[in-house]
């Protein structure tokens, strides 16, 4: 069956051009970048530094401020814990938004064993952080604010510049999880004013297993992984050379192709948005109408449950995600793992927590035909489930 992939927020295929460039670093150019006394190692070190420069180039940073990690989860943990540990003499209070990714939220919560306290700042019904509440939550012992650039579930883009200004004014470090935006829309660390920023390769057609933390010059973190002093001691471990090369290449491609991709995504998104509005009754779009990721449409429909929608759509070859409780963490072990989407709760989606929430995240290779096919089959699925529902 033909598959229509509408879940680019969860992962993306690696661009074949990227794979092509990675290949030699598995076999012929396999050296360890630390082996500087012979050619295989020197080639590796050179490739590593070239990749670093390319990644830096995508986000307006200097190469020396890019630390390669195994992904965004590691980069987020490293930023949160690393900044916390390095600054615990100054204070142990950390501020997050109510809609952070688990890798930020639980990294911060893990610090509670060492006396750190977390304040979670609410967002409005569009998912935009409440700047007043943010300011009010700042304490004398606040050392870090971490707010995501764009939310994966509802697509809302946060006012990073304003948050950075608030943080800077108070002398508090500011980290942004930019997994949703880097490689998708323009991100410039200087213009955003962040002290640290997380990105992931596989969210913009790069390989899985590689990510990076941007760390502004002069910011110290205590490392999460000690060892052989790779990555200037910030992140030890033999470098994933094919991965870093892949991230470098994809950063360069993303930079070049970004304007045309955005244009394409906006057209498809509007088609989808309009089509859904016209064809589905009792549909509620989530997230901000304009401050949002270009390929992102999220919504919930009344009286049809999310997992059931997913299953029916998958049956038609359409692959996407639901923020509904029942569809997340199916591999979990306990009922608590089924906790409702924190994001939907945070933006005030009513309390049938297994609502029919769906997230469609379009990618560069989706086309009009695919969107139209979705618009064709989706109303019937909703109808079918509504007919099954005990409610009117």
């Amino acid at each position, binding site marked *: 069956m033909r598959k229509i992939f509408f879940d680019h927020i969860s992962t993306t295929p690696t661009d074949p051009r990227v794979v092509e460039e990675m290949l030699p670093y598995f076999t012929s150019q396999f050296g360890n970048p630390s082996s500087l006394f012979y050619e295989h190692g020197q080639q590796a070190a050179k490739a590593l530094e070239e990749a670093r420069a390319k990644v830096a180039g995508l986000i307006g940073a200097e190469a020396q401020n890019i630390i390669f990690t195994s992904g965004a989860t590691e980069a987020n943990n490293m930023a949160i814990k690393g900044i916390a540990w390095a600054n615990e003499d100054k204070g142990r209070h950390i501020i997050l938004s109510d809609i952070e990714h688990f890798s930020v939220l639980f990294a911060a919560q893990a610090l509670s064993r060492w006396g750190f306290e977390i304040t979670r700042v609410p967002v409005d019904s569009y998912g935009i952080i409440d700047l007043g509440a943010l300011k009010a939550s700042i304490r004398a012992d606040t050392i870090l604010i971490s707010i995501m650039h764009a939310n994966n579930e509802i697509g809302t883009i946060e006012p990073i510049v304003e948050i950075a200004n608030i943080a800077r004014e108070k002398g508090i470090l500011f980290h942004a999880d930019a997994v949703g935006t880097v490689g998708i829309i323009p991100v410039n660390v200087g213009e955003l004013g962040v002290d640290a920023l997380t990105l992931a390769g596989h969210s913009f057609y790069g390989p899985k297993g590689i990510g990076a933390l941007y760390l502004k010059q002069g910011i110290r973190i205590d490392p999460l992984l000690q060892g052989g002093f790779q990555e200037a001691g910030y992140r030890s471990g033999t470098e994933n050379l094919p991965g870093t090369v892949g991230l470098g290449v994809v950063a360069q491609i993303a930079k070049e192709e970004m304007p045309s991709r955005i244009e394409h995504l906006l057209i498809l998104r509007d088609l989808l948005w309009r089509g859904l509005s016209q064809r589905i009754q009792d549909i509620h779009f989530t997230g901000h109408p304009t401050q949002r990721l270009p390929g992102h449409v999220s919504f919930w429909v009344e009286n049809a*449950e999310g997992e059931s929608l997913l*299953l029916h759509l998958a049956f038609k070859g359409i692959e996407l995600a639901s923020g509904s409780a029942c569809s997340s963490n199916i591999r*979990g072990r306990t*009922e608590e793992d089924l906790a409702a989407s924190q994001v939907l709760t945070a933006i005030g989606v009513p309390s049938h927590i297994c609502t029919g929430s769906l997230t469609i995240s379009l990618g560069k290779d989706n086309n009009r035909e695919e969107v139209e096919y979705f618009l064709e089959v989706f109303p019937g699925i909703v109808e079918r489930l509504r007919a099954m529902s*005990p409610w009117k």
Partner: protein
Amino acid sequence: MTNKLGPYSDKVMDHFMNPRNMGEMEDPDGLGEVGNPVCGDVMRLYLRIKDGIILDAKFKTFGCGAAIATSSMVTEMLKGKTIEEAKKITNQAVAEALDGLPPVKMHCSVLAEEGLEAAISDYERKKGQIS
């Protein structure tokens, strides 16, 4: 079914895609409506009962794949059973009849058991009023 989807058994998917006995019933002898506080699922179960025997069962369910499949399966299991037999149907039994459910989804099968209990006590209450 060859197109096995998700973490569910083929049988779950069969009952999800082709639910048995879905629909309403006029003047049911027993009616149970239960909700699952964990995830908001709701099931309504209708029973037609004569001489202590369940002649027919229908359901309407709002919920995930497991909720719909267990609803469908429990209606199948109920038909032809006596009240006493029906009372012994557990959520484990329903899940087993579906070739199992993922651990995290077991709570969804509770819906079926509770719906059944509710429908039978509704029946017994009504019968008590009538007799």
